[in-house]
């Protein structure tokens, strides 16, 4: 039976990017459907009735929701190419912990950087740098979080790199100055076709953020 894979997505979503990268790493052909989040499709509402959010991976008509669960699912089903999770249970647990850490921290703290001003923004910037430094420490001297090749944590984290320029402009700071090794890692990931093709242009993301700020009345 021919595999039918559809991804319901929204181009600036770091969560959507994760699934794009995983599918590209495995060389899976799929139909990419761009959603208008102000006018969600009947398909999206049907496939993710609980959260009504993207991304949704639809495999042979059955939906998988939540980006990290999609990455794990893709890794399990198409297991013969480019493994993303390690096979050792302890290393797997470590990878899951760090992907979970990225999930809990980066989006929320990053959001506060572009959504707030003054003292609140200063606090958010400080928290973001602390979070990034911790991740930089975990990376250590490895080329990727996954070791010699792109792994689960790399896929979970690299999408946020496409938002760095926007955050730097909104917060008037330099992430590279604080976390040079992390930026080196990010550029290394961007050399991979699966990543480069899955991440939007940073200027485009910045323009999108500016539009959002106007829309929400944030100066």
């Amino acid at each position: 039976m021919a595999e039918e894979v559809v991804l319901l997505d929204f181009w600036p979503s770091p969560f959507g990017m994760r699934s794009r990268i995983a599918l590209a790493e495995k060389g899976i052909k799929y139909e990419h459907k761009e959603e208008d989040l102000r006018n969600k499709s009947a398909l999206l509402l049907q496939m993710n009735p609980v959260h009504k959010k993207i991304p949704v991976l639809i495999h042979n008509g059955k939906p998988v929701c939540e980006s990290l669960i999609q990455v794990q699912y893709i890794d399990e089903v198409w297991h013969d190419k480019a493994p993303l999770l390690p096979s050792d249970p302890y290393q797997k647990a470590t990878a899951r912990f760090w992907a979970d850490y990225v999930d809990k921290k980066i989006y929320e703290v990053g959001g506060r950087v572009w959504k707030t001003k003054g003292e609140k923004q200063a606090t958010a910037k400080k928290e973001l740098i602390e979070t990034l430094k911790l991740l930089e420490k975990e990376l250590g001297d490895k080329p990727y979080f996954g070791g010699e090749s792109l792994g689960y944590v790399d896929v979970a984290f690299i999408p946020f790199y496409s938002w760095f320029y926007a955050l730097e402009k909104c917060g008037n700071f330099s992430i590279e100055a604080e976390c040079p090794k992390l930026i080196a890692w990010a550029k290394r990931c961007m050399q991979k076709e699966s990543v480069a093709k899955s991440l939007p242009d940073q200027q485009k993301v910045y323009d999108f953020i500016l539009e959002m700020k106007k829309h929400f009345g944030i100066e």
Partner: protein
Amino acid sequence: MAVVKLFGAWLSPYVYKVIWALKLKGIPYEYIEEDLSNKSPLLLQYNPIHKKVPVLVHDGKPIYESTVILRYIDEIWPQNPLLPANPYDRAVALFWIKFADDKNPIIAKLYQTEGEEQQAVVNEWLEMLEAMEEHALIGGKKFFGGDEINMVDIAFCMVAHWLGVFEDTAGLKVFEPHKFPQVSSWIQNFKSVPIIKDNLPDTDKIVAYLKRRKEMLLTSKSN
């Protein structure tokens, strides 16, 4: 033989999740009770990032975050599996586990908040219960895991046991059984499982403790 240690706290639902998983698989372990107001150097060494319980130490290696621990346990000791074998069914189970995990820190605030803030927490609870009733417990299953409990049932433990505790502490009724018949049946089924029934913290003890904490919180807010 490999040594398994569990650092926990007597009232934490996150700790109980790990206890149940270890007992369901018949894994012997050493339990170390932590005083959360005075954490041991060992705990801080094993979990320097979050400094929280539970921490599982297996062969001297620490694992933390309750769901990460549960998945590790399930992989190392495959007897009585806690997740479906089929990748799609597993993805669905993981969706509900994440759903519960994301809600848990919010719903715990029921007794720590007042007024509008508390109403927002009540709404989170109702959203959770509605999602469980409408989408998760389909087909009149006894448990999320089918005929036996699995990691999804364990993930929803706050609904099964701690909700009542938070309601008593807050002096507020959130859960109306007649509005959520499937969830009600599931709660009764879950709490009848011997390993769960025999390993639940005493509700009166927790309520007394949380009421004291609530007093302290409210006093410090008004000062």
